[in-house]
């Protein structure tokens, strides 16, 4: 190396920086005002600042919201919901359908001429392929396929056959545009379930060109790429940074009216940054947690949309096992659990923690969902009664419990503080323990806890998606939270309700279940979230549906 080489390198670097900066000044300015496609009403970019990176883009494996929103907009399903309506199921790739009297045989007539964004036809074969694929793969990473396998025939990896009487899968191709589902059980939530992203229709040619369908195996290509029939097509995914979508010009729904040409979903962990980008107009929409809404509310050009209730709920689960850590578990007593339910000051929680963006949760099934009971008993703040119940249970002098929540969750940190203060008033000392999410899950799994603050979000619009995991016992596949709570009557009722076709009868069964659940609570039912979305006021076409993800197709930039 010659003497000047080092300085030479430095000089070159400096020159590059200077030239770069000069070019930057020259080129950067005009970039935002670059003319968009003038010929179409499809224009501009919708920038959405949110959190979380998708786990996978494969509908057969995706079970998280960040994945779901992309999948929902790039793939289509047979049926869907429209607007804010959660009651009616609308056609999507299927134009109409019939069901036989047993509730087990469903026939779907497909929309004709639908093509994937690469030009491949979307026909009955594709539908069958997609459903079969989910069940053959069996979602080895996330287990999401249970949504379909609870009512469809499963696939036997070793024999290569379906576990049905004739060894065929549940989905049959009748003709090019007709498919028939022969269900294992008549499931009351069938249509809502197949509106979920797991039932998205994928292109068989694309899948077979990239690894095909391997029993029990993920498809690596599908987890990073997508080809669908939906309004948007996948452009690129920079992990932990952004996902970019572009409109699919051949979308069967057409592009009448105004739409965005590009969709940019940015992953920004800092709420302050999201807030700033929104306020400066660099983002069209941003995820702002409720405690930060005051920062953006009332700012010019920002709309805070508070339309409707979500199905997202928060609860505190209680360990109902007789002993815990080799000692008598006070929470085993129904009276103690009732007392604790009375000790919580729900109104303070709703007002000061949820800032009014939630209602008290009325039983395990959220308001708005079929099966919800508007007249169900709710616990209220009554420390006197709580003390009496504790006395009756033999804990007049109180006891100490541990309350766990996952670290980093602001709302739960608040809840924990309030609960601690509330329970201290009735003589129960609460030790707060913040745990990392995996550790928390592990403790929950092993039943090694007293109380945990937990939440639940809907998979699909059916009470079974709530009542069963909460209240059914572990033996019959429920008790996702491992509360150890067990009630034979409830188990029986839940199984009955699950495969009951008559929706009115189902509602009655769930009503009975909920009454038992409130009398003998395994959870403190805290809150059901209200919906809130924050976006620039120029954004038009926004609507909220509690069981659907954000729909990009109807969004456009107004004046």
């Amino acid at each position, binding site marked *: 190396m010659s003497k000047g080489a080092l300085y030479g390198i430095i000089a070159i670097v400096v020159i590059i920086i200077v030239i770069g900066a000069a070019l930057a000044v020259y080129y950067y300015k005009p970039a935002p005002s670059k003319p968009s496609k003038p010929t179409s009403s499809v224009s501009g970019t919708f920038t959405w600042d949110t959190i979380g990176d998708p786990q996978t883009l494969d509908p057969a494996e995706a079970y998280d919201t960040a994945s779901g929103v992309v999948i929902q907009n790039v793939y289509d399903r047979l049926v869907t919901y429209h607007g804010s309506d959660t009651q009616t199921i609308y056609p999507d790739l299927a134009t109409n359908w019939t069901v036989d009297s047993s509730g087990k045989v469903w026939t779907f007539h497909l929309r004709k001429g639908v093509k994937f964004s690469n030009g491949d036809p979307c026909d009955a074969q594709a539908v069958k392929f997609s459903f079969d694929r989910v069940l053959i793969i069996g979602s080895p990473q996330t287990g999401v396929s249970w949504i379909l396998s609870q009512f469809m025939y499963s696939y036997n990896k070793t024999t290569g056959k379906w576990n049905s009487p004739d060894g065929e899968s549940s989905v049959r191709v009748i003709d090019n545009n007709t498919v028939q589902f022969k269900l294992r059980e008549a499931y009351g939530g069938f249509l809502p379930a197949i509106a979920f992203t797991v039932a998205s229709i994928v292109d068989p040619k694309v899948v077979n060109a990239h690894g095909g369908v391997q029993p029990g195996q993920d498809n690596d290509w599908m987890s990073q790429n997508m080809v669908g029939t939906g309004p948007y097509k996948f452009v690129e995914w920079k992990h932990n940074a952004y996902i970019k979508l572009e409109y699919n010009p051949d979308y069967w729904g057409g592009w009448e009216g105004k739409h965005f040409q590009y969709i940019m979903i940015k992953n920004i962990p*800092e*709420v*302050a940054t999201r*807030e*700033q980008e929104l306020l400066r107009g660099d983002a069209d929409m941003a995820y702002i947690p409720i*405690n*930060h809404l*005051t*920062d953006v509310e009332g700012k010019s050009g920002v709309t805070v949309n508070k339309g409707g209730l979500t199905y997202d709920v928060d609860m505190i689960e209680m360990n109902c096992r007789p002993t815990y850590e080799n000692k008598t578990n006070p929470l085993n007593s129904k009276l103690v659990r009732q007392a604790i339910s009375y000790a919580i000051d729900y109104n*303070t929680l709703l*007002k*000061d923690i949820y800032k009014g963006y939630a209602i008290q949760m009325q039983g395990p099934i959220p308001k708005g969902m079929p099966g919800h009971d508007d007249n169900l008993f709710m616990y209220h703040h009554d420390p006197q009664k709580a003390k009496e119940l504790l006395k009756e249970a033999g804990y007049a002098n109180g006891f*100490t419990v541990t309350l766990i929540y996952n*670290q*980093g969750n*602001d709302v739960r*940190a*608040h809840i924990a*503080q*309030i609960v*601690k*203060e509330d329970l*201290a008033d009735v003589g129960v*000392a*609460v*030790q*707060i*323990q*913040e*745990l*990392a999410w995996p*550790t928390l899950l592990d403790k929950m799994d092993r039943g090694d806890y007293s109380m945990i603050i937990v939440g639940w979000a809907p998979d699909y619009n059916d009470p079974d998606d709530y009542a069963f995991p909460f209240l059914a016992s572990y033996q019959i596949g429920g008790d996702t939270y491992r509360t150890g709570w067990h009630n034979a009557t409830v188990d029986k009722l839940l199984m009955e309700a699950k495969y009951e076709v008559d929706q009115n009868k189902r509602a009655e069964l769930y009503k009975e279940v909920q009454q038992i659940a409130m009398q003998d609570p395994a959870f403190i039912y805290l809150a059901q979230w209200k919906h809130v979305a924050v976006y620039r006021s120029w954004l038009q076409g926004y609507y909220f549906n509690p069981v659907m993800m954000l729909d990009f197709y109807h969004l456009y930039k107004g004046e």
Partner: protein
Amino acid sequence: MEETASQNFGSKYESQIKEFKYTLHLIRKSPLTLAGLILLIFIFLVAIFAPYLAIEHPIYIGGQQTWLSDFNQTFQPPSWKHPFGTDDMGHDIYSMVIYGTREALYVGFIVVLVAMLIGVLLGAYSGYIGGWFDEVLMRICDMFFAFPGLILAMAITAALGPGLLHVMYALMIVWWPAYTRIVRGQVLSVKQNQYIEAARAVGVSRFKIIWKHVIPNSLPPILVQATMDLGNVILTAAGLAFLGLGAAAYTADWGIMVSQGRSWMIAGKWWWSTFPGLAIFVTVLAFNLFGDGLRDILDPRLRR
């Protein structure tokens, strides 16, 4: 000869006393070091008298420090009533910052002391006896150095679960190799000295040689390192708190306070993050100023 004890002491340690006086003189002459020292004394006083200085005080439920919430007092800007304002649950930030001094110093001192103890013992022993033990220990240190400190601390904390105590364990594990290296280096250079040879020749025990000759000679660089590390540990603990791996929310811990308040800074509620942030900054700066000055002052090559 009749000599009083004090005279004896005075004459025996005459050179040490002279050196110490000279050190004090140098500290006085260096305004930055002096500033660091004064700040440190102030911080220590705050920690000691925290219960008298604070406005609100924590209560203890189930053995846990708990600050009672007051939703009528959320997000109060700094005022006479709340000099540093309040947070989103109505806690007085001033009081929490004051109590946080105790915790910061506690974490800093415990971690550095333990790391120092491990490091000094292992380093002195390893440097003195050499051989395979030294070789293995140094390779272990290499591994720790090859590991980015923050990632290692993150991994250990994640493994142990969040919580202040676990953060402290993690930091101890991260920090000891630095001391081992320093002490070992010192030992190796001291070992060359004639007087050690002499001591050995007369049959002074290994332990005694290490204790009487090696450790005192290694003290200045260790002291400097320790002073600066006190600041670094506090800062790293704050970084872990920021990532959600440190102290629990709504405890009087500066790191978690900055972290919790940070998202409000830009929204105009600047005080929540700013005051604990300043507390960290001032404390760490004080340690750094003092440590950096001390390094200059104690460095025999620069001393005169």
